[in-house]
């Protein structure tokens, strides 16, 4: 049984259909990437998994239990961390407060403190800015904060929505290194990216989304090699 199973999910915003019959699965320990052009439905897929938007039909199961009946906060408690598109850090709160909010669902202060240390080891820059308001951070630092904040809930599955968006090439490199590191430490990752090359380079498997439908699904290596995917998403014909 996969850790996350999405089956035949339809989502609409009012009369606009955003997802049609989306099915995907993420196995324990994998990095799975969901790639596709702007507006394909990647963010909507993650929002549906987190319970921020209700599918019209279909099923979403995590570790065998039905997520569709849960509120977003309950989904977090089940073990899904979500670093949303656009970072969405709490701009008028400090970096430390943001990270503490990431641990909102947890009770043991000592564990939270040691996880905070862990996050600051991954992102030393955040450690230097703990008392700064998150709104004053650079885009890259905000992205680190958004990922660090999601890690503070100790998720079994970490969902990242375009973590490389708007970052300098060097920072993009750093972020992808960090994702590998998070994965190596045992956290399963569902990575949404437009940066298909890099995402497929670190993922085991990938799904390609086109206007609300999954059009390709394969191992990352095969997707990287596929002519159709190369033409559409990897910047150039084979």
């Amino acid at each position, binding site marked *: 049984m996969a850790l996350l199973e999405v089956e035949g999910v339809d989502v609409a915003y009012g009369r606009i259909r955003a997802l049609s019959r989306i099915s995907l699965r993420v196995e324990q320990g994998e990095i799975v990437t969901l790639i596709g052009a702007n507006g394909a439905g990647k963010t909507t897929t993650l929002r549906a998994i987190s319970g921020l938007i209700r599918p019209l039909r279909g099923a979403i199961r995590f570790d065998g239990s039905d997520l569709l009946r849960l509120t977003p906060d309950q989904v977090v408690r089940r073990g899904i961390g*979500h670093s949303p598109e656009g970072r969405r*850090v709490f701009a008028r*709160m400090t970096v430390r407060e943001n990270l503490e909010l990431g641990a*909102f*669902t947890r009770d043991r202060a000592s564990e939270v403190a040691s996880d905070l240390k862990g996050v600051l080891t991954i992102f030393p820059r955040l450690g230097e800015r703990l008392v700064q308001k998150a709104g004053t951070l650079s885009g890259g630092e905000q992205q680190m904060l958004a990922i660090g904040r999601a890690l503070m809930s100790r998720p079994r599955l970490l969902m990242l929505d375009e973590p490389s968006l708007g970052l300098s090439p060097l920072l993009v490199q750093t972020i992808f290194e960090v994702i590998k590191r998070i994965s190596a430490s045992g956290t399963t990752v569902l990575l949404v990216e437009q940066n298909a090359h890099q995402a497929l380079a670190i993922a085991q498997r990938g799904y390609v989304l086109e206007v609300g439908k999954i059009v390709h699904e394969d191992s990352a290596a095969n997707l990287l090699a596929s002519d159709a995917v190369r033409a559409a998403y990897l910047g150039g014909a084979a």
Partner: protein
Amino acid sequence: MEIFFQQVVNGLSLGGIYALIALGYTMVYGIIELINFAHGDVYTLGTFFSLAILSAIGVSGEVHGPALIGIVALAVLSAMLLCGVTGVLIERLAYRRLRNAPRLAPLITAIGMSFILENVMQLWRGPSPVPFPQVIPNPSASFGGVVVSAKQVLVVGLAVVMMAALQVFIYNTKLGKAMRATAQDRDAAQLMGININTTIALTFLIGSALAGAAGFVSGVYYGTTWFFNGFEAGLKAFTAAVLGGIGNVAGAMLGGFLIGLVEAVATQYIPGGAQWSNVVVFSVLVLVLIFRPSGLLGESLPEKV
């Protein structure tokens, strides 16, 4: 000069009441962007609730000694509790299902809620002013001709204590931080594992409880109330919240005291006094908003809750 300082003392007392009410407007606006028109009526309910408690325990006049503290505490806490519950019920029954509706829908619902509360209070206590027992004895101290009454000490003291407690709660507790997070970004707050229904209910609980405290204090201060009392007080407190920067907790406190001061001083110095005080209060608001559209402490993006 004594007259001026006397009006400052009076203004601070009025301001304490406005500030307590303004907090509820600003907190609710901060978290769901709703101007809760029913809030002024919850304040009036606070006066009637504490009146009912006092009647129930047979208090109809001055109380002395340690019993006074007990009775004030009982009246304040029960008004806070009952108003808090009322606020939570209003949110649950009327506003929650409209949370994602177009803005106008909850606004009109809030106006309707205000009418309902006013009518219920009119049925309960009639259309005329109702006397409120003068539980606080009236010794007063004179400082160079400026008289400070025990009632005024109570009003200002209670307001300051409640505001300090609120600040501590909002900035230093986990739930307070959850409230601020929800006010800043509701979806992101949910992704932290915060239950926003609980958080919004808590906001209504606290805001309405503060209005309940203000209701008791105003009963003691004015010695009377009536079912429609919350209309004008609510309007002024809302003005205070906007003046301070709607959504900003410190702004509501500042705005409340400023409005109280302006009103007291205007009543004293403008010929025709009391009738003009409202005009002055709203003129101050208009002037401030011309120069600082987001209010005194509001940023271009207001620091919500």
